[in-house]
C-alpha cells in the first residue's frame, strides 16, 4: 500500500491546529515524564557533581571519566537493563514499575544523570576556587559555602538541566522498553511516533514529529533568551 504523504501532512496539521486530545495527551505525558525525570536527576545528580568537583579523592578522574562515558550510553541498552531489572523475575520486580509512568520517569532520570553530573561538575570546577574560602571567612558553614559555589555555577547547572530534558524527551529506548508504549498511559512522543508509523497512521506520526521538533526548538530558544536576559540567573540569585 502506497502512503499518501501530502494527505498525511495535511491531516497532521489539522490534528495539531484542532487540538486533538489524543495527540496532546501524548505531548502532555512526554513533558511530564521528562520534566519529573530531570528534576529527580538534578536532585541526586547535583550533590554528586558537587562532591566530585569540590572534594579531592583517589580515583577522581576515573569517576569523572565513568560519568562522561555514560552520557553516550545507547538508550535501548539502558532500556533493556532496566526492563530486566524491573521485570517479574528481576531484582527490582517487586517495585511493580514495569510498563508504568513511574518506570519511565525512573529510567529517564537514570539516563540523564550522567549528563547532569558531568556538565554541573565542570561548571562547579570552573568557579573561582577562592569562592569557597570567601564564603567561609564571611561566616558560612561548610554546606552554605557549597551552596555559594553552586550559585556561581548556576549557568552550568541550568545548561545541564536543558541538555538532560532534551535527551529525555527525545529518547526512545527506555520509554519503549520500560514503559511498554501503552496507549493513553505510557506512550510518549517518540514511542507513539514509532507505533503510529508501524501502523501506517502517518498523519499522527507526522503531527507528533512536528510537535517534538517544535518542543525541542522552543526549549532551547527559551534558554537562549533566558541566558541573554539573565532571567534565570537573577531569579536564582535574588536576595
Amino acid at each position, binding site marked *: 500500500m502506497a502512503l499518501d504523504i501530502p494527505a498525511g501532512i495535511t491531516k497532521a496539521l489539522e490534528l495539531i491546529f484542532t487540538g486533538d486530545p489524543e495527540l496532546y495527551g501524548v505531548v502532555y505525558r512526554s513533558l511530564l515524564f521528562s520534566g519529573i525525570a530531570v528534576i529527580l536527576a538534578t536532585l541526586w545528580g547535583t550533590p554528586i557533581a558537587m562532591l566530585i568537583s569540590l572534594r579531592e579523592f583517589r580515583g577522581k578522574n576515573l569517576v569523572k571519566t565513568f560519568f562522561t562515558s555514560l552520557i553516550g550510553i545507547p538508550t535501548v541498552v539502558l532500556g533493556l537493563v532496566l526492563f530486566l531489572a524491573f521485570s517479574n523475575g528481576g531484582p527490582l520486580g517487586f517495585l511493580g514499575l514495569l510498563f508504568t509512568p513511574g518506570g519511565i520517569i525512573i529510567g529517564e532520570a537514570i539516563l540523564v544523570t550522567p549528563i547532569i553530573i558531568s556538565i554541573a561538575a565542570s561548571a562547579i570546577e570552573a568557579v573561582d576556587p577562592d569562592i569557597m574560602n570567601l564564603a567561609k571567612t564571611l561566616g*558560612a*558553614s561548610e554546606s552554605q559555602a557549597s551552596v555559594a559555589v553552586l550559585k*556561581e555555577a548556576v549557568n552550568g547547572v541550568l545548561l545541564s538541566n536543558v541538555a538532560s530534558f532534551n535527551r529525555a524527551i527525545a529518547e526512545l529506548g527506555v520509554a519503549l522498553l520500560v514503559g511498554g508504549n501503552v496507549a493513553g498511559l505510557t506512550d510518549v512522543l517518540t514511542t507513539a511516533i514509532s507505533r503510529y508509523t508501524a501502523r501506517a497512521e502517518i498523519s499522527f506520526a507526522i503531527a507528533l514529529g512536528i510537535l517534538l521538533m517544535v518542543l525541542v526548538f522552543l526549549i532551547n530558544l527559551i534558554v537562549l533568551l533566558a541566558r541573554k536576559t539573565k532571567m534565570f540567573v537573577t531569579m536564582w*540569585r535574588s536576595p
Partner: protein
Amino acid sequence: MTVTAELRNVTKTFGEKTVLDNINLEINEGEILALLGPNGSGKTTILKILAFIENATSGEVWFQGETVDFKRAEKFRLQSTLVFQRTVLFDTSVFNNVAYGLKVRKTPKSVIDEEVKNALRMVRLQGFEKRPAKKLSGGEQQRVAIARALVLKPKLLLLDEPTANLDPKNAAMVEEVIATVNREMKTTVVLATHNMFQAKTLPHRIALISDGRITEVGAPAEIFGMLSRNLASFAVVGNTFTGNSVPTSEGTAVVDVGNGVRIEVTAQKSGEVSVFINPQDIILSKTALESSARNVFKGTITEISDLGALVKLKVDVGKPFSVQITKRSFLQMGLNLNAEVFIAFKASSVQVL
C-alpha cells in the same frame, strides 16, 4: 593587655615545603599589626590560619582565650574575617555581596539594609547597592570586598595586601577606612603588606616575616630605626638597596648600591645603610630631564605590568627599579619592553633605613 588571637609554635607545610616555621605571634586587642615581608614569605598563610580557613600542620591557635579546633572552627570564623589580596566577588549585585555574611548570620532584613548602607558609606560607595559587583573598577571592587568584611563588625579583621593593586587615590581611601575602623570600632586589624610606607604609617606594631619565620616584632619606629640585617631580604620587594653611604661636602650622602648605581640621599649617614625609593616618587622620561632631581639614571624597561589605572614598570639601570606611572602617561609615551628610558628622583625622596 588582652590578647585577641595567638599563634603558638605554628608550623605549616604543603607537601615537602615548609611555609611557616614555628611562628609565635600575639595579636593584641585593638591594635593594627602589620605583617611585613616579601612575596612568598608566608604572610597570606598566617592570615588564612587566623581566619581559620587554613589548618596549621602543628602548633596551637588561640582565639579570645580558647584553643581553636580546626574541625570546629565555624563559630570562630564568625568573629574573624579575611579580605583576600585578589578581590573575589560573588557574581551578583554589590548589595548581595556585602549582605552575604549578614544573611548567613540570619540577621533581620531591615537590619541588613541599614548595615549594608552604612558599610558602603564607609568605603564611599553609597548608592552602589544595585550595581553588578563584577562590573565595577578594580578599586571599587576591592572597596566592596572591604565593606563586605566591615559590615560583619568582626573582632579580628584580616587584610591581605589591601592596597597592593590599587591606584594611589583608592589606596589612600582604603588606608583611611582601616584606620577609622580601628579607631572608632576598636576592631583589631592584622594586615599583610610589602609596602614599607604603609607599614610605617598605619600599624601600631610590625612583625617582619621572611622565609616563613618572624624575625622581628616591634613598633614601626623600632623596626625602621634598627638597621636589621633582615631588611636586606626586602630587596625583593623592589626599590630597596643596601650599600655604603659616604657623606658629601654638600650636606648629602652618596650610597653606592653596586653596579655603578650611586644614589644621592639627604640623610648624612656613613657606613652600611638600606635605602628605599617609593615607586610613585620616580619620574620616568624618554630623554634626560634637566630638573632638580639629584638622581638620574639611564636604563631599559624589562617588565610591564598593568594594574588598571596604573602601570608598573621594572627599569634596569644596573639595579632594577620599580616605577609606577598612570596608564595614560604610559600610552602617551608609547613605551614598550626594552625601550630606553631615564628615571629621576630627588635625594629627599630616598628613605634611608
